[in-house]
């Protein structure tokens, strides 16, 4: 057997799996979004009609889509900067030469990342309980009145954001820590000899050197956070008053509760388009500021 044949033989299984079970459905998703595929079509394919862009048009006139998009954007716009800030602080602490027992702290801070999101979401649902929850208990000891985290439409999304930050910050922390370790120590050495303060070293050496990593981590986190689903599904079930229904939550309900697969596909595609546009924008703007 020559090398060409061997290569194709080795590639074939993965290519078939990805082609049939990923690329084909992705292409099909767009086609599906142009049809009125629903329960009737599921029963008998002859009921299927081509509706062009009607699904998209109908979505843009649906208040629930806009509110779901609003909740998702809220989650991304507050959750991503907060997550990044916590990740960066944790990475800086772990990188500090004064820190003790670094591997131990690193493992502890990273542990939430590997946990099952559904299981820890269940845990946090009880921690956020108004009466018996320990979150309010801690706030109470600081003199703050109990917050109805999961029952008040204004507080449900902040609660989910806090949970997401706790669950995810460790991931970016590891990447940023590697970024910090890659900055040559001589740079800080030289700045120290020139009398630069810790803050100025951070501002003028650490941040610029870390900028490309921060940008990459930021884009990946934005894309991940746009896919909000399991957290509201478990913690709030979309409530209260649908204040935590995300775009994917809407897609799931539309597709697999009401079986409007055509409309649900349009939702998926719109979300994908928005994610793509936002990460492209970040790349352009961020790339310019990082001076690359």
């Amino acid at each position, binding site marked *: 057997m020559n090398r060409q044949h061997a290569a194709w033989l080795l*590639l074939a299984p993965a290519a078939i799996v990805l082609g049939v079970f*990923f690329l084909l459905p992705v292409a099909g998703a767009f086609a599906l979004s142009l049809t009125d595929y629903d329960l009737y079509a599921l029963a008998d394919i002859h009921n299927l009609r081509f509706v062009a862009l009607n699904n998209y048009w109908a979505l843009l006139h649906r208040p629930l889509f806009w509110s779901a998009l609003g909740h998702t954007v809220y989650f991304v716009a507050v959750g991503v900067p907060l997550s990044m800030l916590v990740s960066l602080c944790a990475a800086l602490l772990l990188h500090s030469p004064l820190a003790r027992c670094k591997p131990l*702290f690193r*493992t502890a801070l990273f*542990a939430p990342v590997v946990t*099952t999101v559904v299981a820890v979401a269940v845990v946090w649902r009880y921690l956020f309980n108004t009466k018996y929850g320990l979150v309010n208990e801690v706030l109470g000891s600081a003199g703050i009145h109990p917050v109805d985290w999961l029952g008040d439409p204004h507080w449900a999304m902040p609660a989910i954001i806090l949970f997401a930050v706790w669950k995810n910050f460790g991931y970016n922390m590891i990447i940023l820590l590697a970024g910090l370790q890659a900055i040559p120590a001589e740079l800080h050495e030289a700045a120290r000899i020139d009398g630069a303060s810790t803050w100025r070293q951070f501002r003028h050496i650490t941040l610029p050197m870390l900028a490309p990593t921060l940008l990459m981590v930021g884009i990946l986190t934005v894309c991940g956070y746009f896919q909000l689903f399991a957290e509201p599904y478990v913690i709030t079930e979309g409530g209260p008053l649908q204040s935590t229904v995300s775009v994917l939550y809407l897609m799931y309900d539309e597709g697999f509760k009401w079986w409007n*697969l055509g409309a649900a596909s349009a939702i998926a595609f719109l979300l994908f388009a928005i994610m793509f546009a936002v990460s492209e924008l970040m790349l352009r703007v961020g790339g310019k500021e990082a001076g690359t």
Partner: protein
Amino acid sequence: MTPRLAKALINGLLIGGALVALFPMLWMVSVSLMQPGEASNLPPPLLPAQATLHNYRELFLRAGMGRYWLNSLLVSTAITVLSLAFNLMAGYAFAKLRFAGRDALFKGVVGMLAIPAQVAMLPLFLLLKPIGLVNHYGGVIVPAMASAFGIFLVRQYARGIPDELLEAARIDGAGELRIFVRVVLPLLKPIMVTLSIYTFLTAWNDFMWPLIVLTGQEHYTLPLGLASLAREHATDTELMMAGSVVTVVPVLLLFLALQRYYLEGLLLGSVKG
């Protein structure tokens, strides 16, 4: 700030951060050992007055958690073994074998990393329905038998294998497949461990796709069983915590045992940006 004060501050913050990160999990374990209803006392207790395994018994005997546990183990193991084999083969081919269209094809693989899986979910459901994979373990396993991320990871790692080694084996008259099995696979062992633990954890923790494709309770994986249990038994705090412990502890232990490999994979994979 004096160095001693700075040192105290930094280590104090680290201790505080680690406590916040670990507390929900410690609380989960503690409450899972309480008597039913105990966690709803005021003020909420941190430790059980008298530890009991009652909730775990209830979970396995009455709530069917044993079945979910085995389902999870079966699905995650099958995905890990199969996708490991397929991703290793493809990743090596991309890294070390020359064939027409290789670079274009690999660009395609990298492009796939940017497409969120949710876009494919609705048509995939319709594709799997006629072939009987909806409400079947295969519905979760088959689409996960290869991943763009896994191929990418193996390819990055396999590029480090020296070409001279492969040439020497060829001169000795070894066939390409024999070289792959005898020469290449032993060299890929570290990335095999990394990819296995990564895949296993992802499969074990996965929620949305199994929720869609596994419609009957008898096929539920742990996250699905736990989510449906949480909707039925919302007030049984102690029982739910036992369910969370049973779900989380296996992956936490696996991570602790192989954490070096896991973190390496995380860093290798993040270079894609």
